[in-house]
């Protein structure tokens, strides 16, 4: 169930959709509010995927510039957050295609043979002193980086973007059940990776 629906957000003058429409009409201050509201989530979505701050900065700027250029064509037929993360997702796919890495869509390993249960306990072999020294966030970020791209993408869109399953499914071109499965597999692998912290 989506946390926010379009019908609920439309009458709200401070809602994302109203702000985006105001910006499209020439009100620059609306963009400031939108940017302040969503810059962190988008940035972390990108930096968790690529793991490189420089690359994430470049993609982050491209995402917002694409949004600025496309402002005139924006129509509140869907949530603004969905539109924003679609732009970010597409930019990420472009980046991975350019770098020759695996694609987000299509290479979906989440089937019954997915070796989630057979994953080695990555942190189990690490010294306790080192585990203790690392912050929780760093462990989590590392665990995310080891996730399959499709699972990481679904997980981050759900966790950082706050998108519903249906929105993620529409954005990534996968089915709702597939998205749900990806998120569950991602959670399972993260728990496995971070089980020593329990």
């Amino acid at each position, binding site marked *: 169930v989506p*946390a926010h629906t379009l019908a609920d957000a439309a009458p709200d003058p401070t809602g994302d959709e109203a702000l985006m429409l105001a*910006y*499209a*009409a*020439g*009100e*620059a201050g609306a*963009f*400031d509010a939108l*940017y302040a*509201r*969503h*810059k*962190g*989530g988008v*940035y*972390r979505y990108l*930096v968790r995927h690529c793991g490189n701050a420089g690359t994430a*900065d470049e993609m*982050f*700027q491209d995402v*917002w*510039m694409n949004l*600025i*250029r496309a*402002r*005139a064509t924006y129509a509140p037929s869907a949530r603004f957050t969905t539109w924003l993360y679609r732009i970010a997702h597409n930019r990420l796919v472009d980046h991975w295609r350019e770098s020759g890495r695996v694609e987000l869509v299509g290479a979906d390993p989440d089937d019954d043979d997915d070796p989630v249960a057979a994953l080695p306990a990555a942190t189990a072999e690490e010294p306790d002193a080192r585990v203790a020294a690392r*912050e*929780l*966030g760093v*462990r*989590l*970020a590392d665990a995310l980086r080891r996730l399959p791209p499709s699972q990481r993408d679904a997980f981050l869109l*759900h*966790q*950082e*973007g*706050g998108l519903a*399953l249906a929105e993620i499914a529409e954005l990534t071109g996968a089915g709702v059940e597939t998205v*749900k499965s990806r*998120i*569950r597999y991602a*959670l399972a692998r*993260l*728990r496995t990776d*971070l089980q020593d*912290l*329990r």
Partner: protein
Amino acid sequence: MNPDRPPSDPDPLRDPRFDAGWQALSRENPPPALDARILAAAHRTVAAGPRPAGVREATRPERWWWPLAAAASIGAVAFGILQVIGPDRADVSLAERAVVSDAPVQSSRPATPEAAAPASAPIAAPPPPRQRNSRADAAPPAPSRPKPAPLQAPIAPPPAAAPEPAPPGLARDAAAPRETAGASAVGGVAPATPQATAPAAPAAPAAVAPAPAAAALRAEAQRKTNAQLPIDEWLSRIRKLRAEGKTDELAREIAAFRAAYPNEERRLQEELGRALPPRE
């Protein structure tokens, strides 16, 4: 985790333990320089970029005067051209057009018989063509109006000396009378008297008259001219018309002959025989 998302979401796909981890990572934000760059681009685009379609519509009423301004500009240019050319040039161009064009041109001046008379009179010496272009020619003063041909007979040479006029009623174009008068002048048959010079001016109106009216005027003028011909010469002309099969002109010529020489019906009968139409 998204810190802007409402808390306490009972999402089965979330793990509260990871939420705490996301809280620790949520301080990760883009560099301030990147923020400033993006915000500046957003503001710059709004200030200088093209406006959306809905906003552009609002500027349309500001341009309602464009067609009006274009029309005013065209009017000003046309007025300036008229000022440069002047009314004299306009009249000249009209006269020139009447001379060179065979098409019937509608003229505001009526084609009166007086206007056609000088062209038909072989004694009338038209002014040089250069003078026809003057404004005085286009609008001749009243005293210099051409007189009817019979009144000029005393100063005219004998009819035998006159050049052979074109057959009357010949369906020629409107410029034909002018050509006849011009040929007379070139031949030097008639002296260029003031009376003979002035009547040439109305030739232009006659030339611009419609073709049927010009033909009628020409026939009338020819009739007046034939009244001065000797009987033998006139009969010779009638015989020639008959030989050429110009029945319409022949009928007019016979009528004119009968009017001029009512007592010479016998000569006419001898000339035409059974082809002579009955007298009206």
